[in-house]
């Protein structure tokens, strides 16, 4: 299997889907001539032309709104928002329009739209460029939210997302674009709404997604040295949540720690914990724990920033403190 970066895996997914279906096109700020601010759309302009790789003005509301309208008109747009921080300027279109149109009009109109956007922190980009907003998106029925952690998942899930008839927020991670991994070749797709057991274990379940998967992975190897076997679940899709996979793991380990780089308050960890409790309270041998970012606007200073973010050591400490 070829090794690809997360970035190139996404690029391959876009290319393959654009080749497969002429209704698929991409639009966004600097996606064409500049090749994408994170180079995910590298080479696509010269391959597919300006009709299908559309540079837009810096106007997030109309980028997303026009993508929704194009989807209403029968196309399959993939809109890139340069980073998730700017999605807030498009929030009205995402929440009040993309997520509503299908239901509000009684299923008459489909909105097959993918909004790709990276989130992530830890690069000293300051308070306005170091955020994760999955909480905002998963709160809204009508949206699907995907957050792949590996190059293979990035490819397989993006391809599925482009073929899907729903509006999808596809959360990439700016810290993962350079990460390499094996990626299956042509026509590899992964199902929406399916988590995966990233690593099997017996004693505790670490639930993670996107970059927090690697925090969990590091924690698991340290826990292993202490004789604790951690199972890791990579959620991959955040809305809808795959409770089946989660509960199957809880049934085995009876202990859960949820790891997320988003702020603590309202973090999807709370939702997952609640659902585990609703469906499987008796499976638990200890209260569910979460390891998240601190509730603070991200400071620029490196030490302060690192102190605001969750680390493997926090996960290890949390697990060790569990009864």
């Amino acid at each position, binding site marked *: 299997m070829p090794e690809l970066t997360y970035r190139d895996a996404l690029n391959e997914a876009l290319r393959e889907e654009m080749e*497969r*279906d*002429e*209704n698929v*096109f991409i639009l966004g700020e600097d996606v064409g001539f500049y090749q994408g601010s994170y180079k995910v759309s590298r080479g696509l302009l010269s391959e597919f032309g300006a*009709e*299908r790789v*559309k540079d*837009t*003005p810096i*106007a997030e*509301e*109309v980028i*997303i*709104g*026009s*993508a*929704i*309208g*194009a*989807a*209403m*008109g*029968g*196309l399959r*747009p993939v809109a890139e928002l340069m980073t998730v921080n700017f999605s807030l300027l498009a929030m*009205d*279109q995402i929440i*009040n*329009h993309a997520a509503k*149109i*299908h*239901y*509000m*009009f*009684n*299923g*008459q*109109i*489909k909105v*097959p739209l993918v909004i790709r956007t990276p989130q992530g922190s830890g690069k000293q980009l300051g308070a306005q460029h170091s955020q994760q907003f999955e909480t905002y998106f998963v709160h809204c*029925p*009508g949206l*699907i939210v995907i957050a792949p952690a590996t190059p293979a998942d990035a490819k397989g899930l993006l391809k*599925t997302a482009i*073929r*899907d*008839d*729903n509006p999808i927020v596809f959360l990439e991670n700016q810290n993962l674009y350079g990460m390499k991994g094996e990626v299956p070749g042509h*026509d590899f*797709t*992964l*199902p*929406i*709404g399916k988590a995966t057991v990233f690593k099997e274990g017996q004693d505790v379940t670490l639930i993670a997604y996107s970059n927090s998967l690697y925090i969990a992975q590091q924690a698991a190897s340290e826990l292993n040295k202490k004789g604790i076997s951690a199972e890791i679940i990579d959620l991959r899709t955040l809305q809808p949540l795959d409770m089946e996979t989660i509960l199957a793991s809880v049934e085995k380990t009876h202990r859960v720690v949820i790891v997320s780089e988003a702020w603590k308050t309202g973090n999807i960890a709370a939702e997952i914990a609640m659902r585990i409790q609703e469906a499987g309270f008796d499976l638990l041998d200890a209260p569910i724990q979460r390891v998240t970012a601190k509730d603070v606007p991200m400071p620029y200073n490196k030490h302060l920033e690192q102190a605001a973010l969750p680390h493997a050591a926090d996960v290890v400490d949390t697990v060790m403190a569990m009864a």
Partner: protein
Amino acid sequence: MKLETQLTTTELLNLYQKMLLIREFEEKAAQMYTQGKISGFTHLYIGQEAVAVGAISAILDHDYVITAYREHGQALAKGCDPKEIMAELFGKATGVSGGRGGSMHLCDIEHRFMGGFAIVAGQLPLAVGLGLSITYKKENDVVLCLFGDGAVNEGAFHESLNLAKLWDLPVIFLCENNQYAMGTAVSRATSLTNIAQHACSYEIPSHRVNGMDVLAVRETVEHAVRYARAGHGPSLIEALTYRYRGHSMADPLKYRAAQEEEIWQERDPIPNLAQKLIEQNITTQQAMDQIQQEVTQILESAVAFAEESPEPPLDSLMTRIYEPFSNQNPAPPPKKSLLNPQ
């Protein structure tokens, strides 16, 4: 003043009939609202009929209309069934939006009526996207996008005009300047009160038209439609009009001068057209009476239909939030080329 038009008597009577239908539909809706049959926000179109009827008569069935929440009249003008619109206001399963939308969210894809939207200016970016879908597929349709004077102050208006021109999309932006956004007069909210002039910032041609004159609106929109179909891109039209009723059924209308209202009442597009049609012997009083009877009948059966229709079943609540996920279907086959049709 003589009616200057190439239209046939039948076409003129159709315009008149549509305007009258809208006026009386709205009066009926107000009555049903007062009786508690219709709830929620209900915004009447009374006074603005010439805009929707004139504009929509200038486009084809296959062209798109997308609009705001004051849209009963526009849906009627686009040919949606008055029965299904009334049923929607009643929240019934037979409504155009299955009772899920209500007064502000009429949608009828068969008539390419792409929805009423209730976030001021929210439909403008969508119109740009519909326009893009047309040029992308090399089709020849146009998008008629209606909005109020209040929408002009939203960023979405400016973003949309800019992008529509940048990509030369076939969108006709039609601003219904009814002088007020809720209780705020245009001059209290918009620094450049000549809304048509906003188009200059985007190199878009614009026209200001008397929105109380159905033929003037029609002609202006026809021009913009020809321009769009020829591939020249968007236009902005400002139709000067007035809503005779409150912003919504909940508005007691305390912020307008009686004198101002009288001036606009004299411009009422419906009796004015009727008078001209009779005075100039284009039609007879008898024909006009017959139109009135037809309209009354249409509305009676619309109300009866809405009354008798079933409520949407409770077990439909959680359905059609999502389309089935693609991984629950087989992968769609490759589409044949739309860009380079053989």
